[in-house]
């Protein structure tokens, strides 16, 4: 029986894939990979006593790549859902994935999430946040029209171009966009829908179990010694309340 953790330790290197296109978790700044995931995982690799090597892949090919064994682990933030848990092994939460809304700066018609009622809102297709947004929209008097984009950039670009009034995605992402282009985007508080969390994933089979356990242990250690807090404050300016046990998912 192969064991991923011992393989990695024997190699002295863990190859982790992500899409370097999900600020503030993963981004390419001045040609270098940085972000919350990077900072966190560097620490974890240190704990494991191995070197971390990062790969940039489009989201479409990350999970197929994982299954084909082209790399060991996915450090992209993946929203923890029941359906996904059937197929993959998740780590403990590493970020808040609750949906939040961004609007065009200066748009006075929207001051709270419910104001999207009857308006057009964009989001990334195939995400857990889309499901949340749909559910939320249904609960409104007049539901919002929801447009799905292959990428959140395009949704934001379309909002800047004036075709849509809001973009919904995970709270950290929307917050970061608002900070980066203050004159253009604005975060609408509070987040809405069910609280959701991001985790990292490994293959769903037995031999990645030990790796997940080791990473979880390392994460818990970071919870305690304040490294997690420091990293989050560096990127978000605040510290999300992340659970230290696996959250309940329906």
């Amino acid at each position: 029986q192969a064991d991923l953790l011992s393989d990695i330790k024997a190699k002295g290197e863990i190859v982790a894939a992500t899409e370097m296109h999900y600020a503030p978790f993963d981004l390419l700044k001045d040609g270098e990979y940085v972000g919350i995931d990077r900072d966190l995982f560097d620490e974890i690799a240190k704990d494991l006593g191995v070197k971390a090597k990062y790969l940039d892949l489009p989201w479409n090919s990350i999970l197929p790549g994982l299954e084909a064994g082209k790399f060991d682990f996915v450090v992209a933030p993946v929203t923890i859902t029941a359906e996904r848990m059937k197929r993959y092994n998740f780590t403990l939460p590493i970020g808040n994935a609750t949906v939040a809304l961004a609007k065009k700066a200066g748009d006075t018609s929207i001051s709270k999430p419910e104001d999207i009622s009857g308006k057009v809102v964009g989001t990334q297709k195939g995400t857990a946040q889309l499901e949340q947004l749909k559910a939320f929209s249904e609960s409104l008097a007049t539901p919002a029209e929801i447009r799905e984009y292959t990428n959140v950039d395009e949704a934001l670009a379309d909002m800047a171009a004036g075709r849509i009034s809001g973009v919904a995605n995970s709270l950290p992402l929307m917050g970061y966009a608002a900070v980066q282009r203050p004159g253009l985007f604005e975060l609408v508080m509070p987040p809405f829908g069910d609280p959701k969390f991001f985790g990292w994933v490994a293959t769903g089979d037995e031999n990645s179990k030990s790796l997940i356990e080791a990473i979880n242990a390392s994460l818990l250690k970071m919870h305690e010694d304040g490294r997690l807090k420091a990293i989050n404050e560096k990127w978000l300016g605040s510290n999300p309340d992340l659970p230290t046990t696996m959250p309940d998912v329906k």
Partner: protein
Amino acid sequence: METELFVRYGPALLYGFGITILCWLAGSIGGVIVGFILACLNRWGPHALSWVIYVYVEIIRGTPFMIQLFILYYGGPYIGLVLSPVQAGITSFVVYGSPYFAEIFRSGFNAIPKGQIEAARCVGMPETRILWRIILPQMLVPITAPLTNFFIILTKETAILSVVTVPELLFQTQTMAAETFTFVEPFLALSLFYWLMVLVTGWIGAKVEQRVTRHLKRA
């Protein structure tokens, strides 16, 4: 392989296929027409115009479709050009394809021996008639294959339309993949649909080629 997936996503996939075919046909036929006009203007039009056409061809051909589409759709509104996704998709498809077609037609023009055109001029045939009766039928010999090639390439370029939320085939298969965490099945469906289009295009191309090369077959 989970076949019930196809039952569940079948209608969406078919719908996407329809949109793909619509954009592809409208875009590529428009592209052929514009390309042909460009090639003709380049050959018979005033000299200054051929420079304009050269610049157009080089710029549009030299830059990626995704970026053109992005600029048209997301940049357009800044100059007051607001298009719907399908409108933008078809427009940019026509624009994107035309320089390639123009170049293919140019190569076709070059392949006709000068003497045959001289012979046509000598009997006083008008230039348009020469184009239709002498040049076009013969230039189809060398260019049917490249034309078929490019129609086939365009079938797959439709995938890029998903960037502007055109609900085409790739868009639908991505939804399927994201919602079900399967990869083989959606890609299989995608490949199958494209393959179908390519098969039909290739078949038509072969038929056209057979027809236009009739005179080359020696008994």
